[in-house]
């Protein structure tokens, strides 16, 4: 009796887990499935889970769409550049907060943490005017350059927590041998925080790749559009028929890099290293 009850509980558990998994992945499945359909099938009143005759027409069409291809290149280009600058500067600042003792460190650290409360959108208006003065509107500069100044307090915090766990004796013995901070940072500390760096890089990548608001405000011209901005223009609320297969094809191609990055980073992220410093 007791074991039978346990087995039933187990089965119910798996049913729930499988059901939730299906629901969570369904939008992705639907995206892929719809990209292989014809326009009639995407608007059909019946349930078409998988198209009877999958067609690659939408893919062929989109590979001839120069606006889309350029938006893809723009996204890759700006994400890479901003990612490198942000990752490096965030690591440098995290080093200052964890491995060096300097007067005012606690005050500055507290200030940095409190900026997490400031929504970036609250700064959009004055930043826009500032970039306008620099004649940066209509260029990639406003969405790339600010990251170089260690943009992202949460990321600094995350790396600082990781760096603070490394025994300080390691640095001290290196200093005995005549190393300086730059050398210790590059040769000793960075190699020891590879996993947290991978997590931070993933978060930064996802944030940049998905970003809509800032590119929308600053880019202004179609030739500079990143993927989220360009893809949003494919869906036009005022037209009677939406080209769903085309939109979904663009969507699939937009999400592929996210999936690849997630596949490689999930082992770090899902183990919860990220939040180990949260307690209390």
């Amino acid at each position, binding site marked *: 009796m007791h074991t039978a009850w346990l087995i039933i509980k187990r089965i119910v558990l798996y049913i729930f887990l499988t059901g939730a998994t299906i629901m969570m992945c369904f939008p992705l499945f639907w995206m892929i499935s719809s990209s292989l359909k014809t326009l009639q099938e995407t608007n059909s009143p019946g349930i078409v889970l998988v198209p009877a005759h999958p067609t690659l027409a939408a893919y062929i069409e989109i590979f001839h769409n120069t606006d889309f291809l350029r938006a893809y290149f723009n996204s890759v280009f700006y994400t890479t550049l901003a990612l490198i600058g942000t990752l490096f500067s965030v690591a440098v600042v995290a080093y*200052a907060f964890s491995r060096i003792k300097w007067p005012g460190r606690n005050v500055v650290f507290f200030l940095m943490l409190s900026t997490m*409360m400031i929504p970036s959108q609250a700064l959009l208006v004055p930043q826009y005017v500032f970039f306008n003065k620099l004649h940066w509107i209509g260029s990639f500069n406003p969405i790339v350059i600010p990251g170089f100044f260690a943009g992202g307090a949460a990321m600094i915090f995350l790396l600082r927590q990781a760096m603070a766990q490394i025994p300080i004796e390691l640095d001290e013995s290196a200093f005995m041998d005549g190393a300086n901070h730059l050398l210790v940072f590059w040769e000793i500390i960075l190699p020891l925080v590879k996993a947290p760096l991978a997590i931070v890089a993933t978060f930064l990548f996802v944030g940049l790749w998905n970003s809509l608001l800032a590119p929308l405000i600053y880019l202004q011209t179609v030739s500079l559009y990143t993927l989220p901005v360009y893809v*949003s223009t494919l869906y036009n609320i005022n037209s009677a028929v939406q080209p769903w297969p085309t939109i979904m094809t663009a969507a699939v191609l937009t999400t592929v890099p996210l999936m690849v990055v997630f596949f490689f980073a999930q082992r770090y992220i899902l183990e919860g290293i990220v939040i180990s410093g949260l307690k209390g």
Partner: protein
Amino acid sequence: MTQNPYIDVLLNALLAVLFIIITSFGLGSLARYLAKWTGASKRKQESTFAGYLFASPWIVGFLIFVIIPLGYSLFWSFTDYRVTDNAPPNWIGLDNYAQLILKDTGFRSSIVNTLFLTSVGLPVMIAVALFLAVLLNQKTRGERLFRMAFYLPVILGFNTAVLLSWRLMLNTGTGIINQLIRALSTAFPPFSYLTRGIIFIQELISAFFLGISSGKYALFNRVLEAGLPAANRVPLWVESPLWSKMSVVLLMVWGCGAMMLIFLTGLNNIPRELHDAADVDGANDWQHFWKISFPLLTPYVFYNLVVGLIACLQIFEPIYVLYRDNQPLVPSAISMVYYLWQASFRNFEIGYGSAISWLVLLLILMVTAIQFMLQKRWVNYELY
């Protein structure tokens, strides 16, 4: 300035790096000089130099991109500044704030909509995240796969591409979600009653919130009098003002994986002995959860609540992608950040937009402060 945008940004990035290096050395040297002046030891002078040298990318960025903009926007919020005409800003005192708080119906809608997301959406989101975390904590086979699936929406996030996939699924007539609801309702009549009940309650709540923002409760009364909807009714996800916010809630709940991960960490931190002791006393699963797990998870609930609330106030992408230019739906769905975008970057009313920014900022600080004050009453830190 070069014509090629790619070379342009690369050059500017190089300039930015040079600028950062120079200011860092400047700030570091200044700090060292000050340390020397106060009579610090040679060693301490050096660490002061190194500390400021390494921290200054953030310090300089904080000044340029946070403090100075905040100062400017505070000033502009008291003016009628518009970026399109070259006229200097005129001081108009508290007019912007008075207009926003007392007269602006769009702004009021955005606050009420945010209230809906935080009071209806956020609890559902946290509950689902907690439920999934408890399920995953049962040490199942293929746990990693389930974790991946539950976290996947967080990575996809509010990317336009994913939002458009949702838009397709949420089509009222031919969308797959409503198709499935119709098919299930025909197959199992009890399911039909369940959905109609949910539709009724949801529309009642939404109509109530629409009533708050417009001051008229006629719609609420109509929904109430109509009673349980007809048998063939389906949710009108992105077609009706009664459902526009619920679609956003659906998206929020879908993306609850980050919260789930935090709960999972919390569940793992609960000492095994507590559950063993309860087993000896013959506690059932329900008691295990409510008497042991949940009280010890309250710090994590609190964390998710704080972070979730700030996230709710900042929602922009779903509303832009789903409802932009859809005039009848915009007021029923707009968030505060969407309203900020609309005022500042569609109408270029910088003064007005600055006032909105400051109100959003103050609201976030206030709400967070209140949460921290209230946490003593229900958050349990004793074990930690």
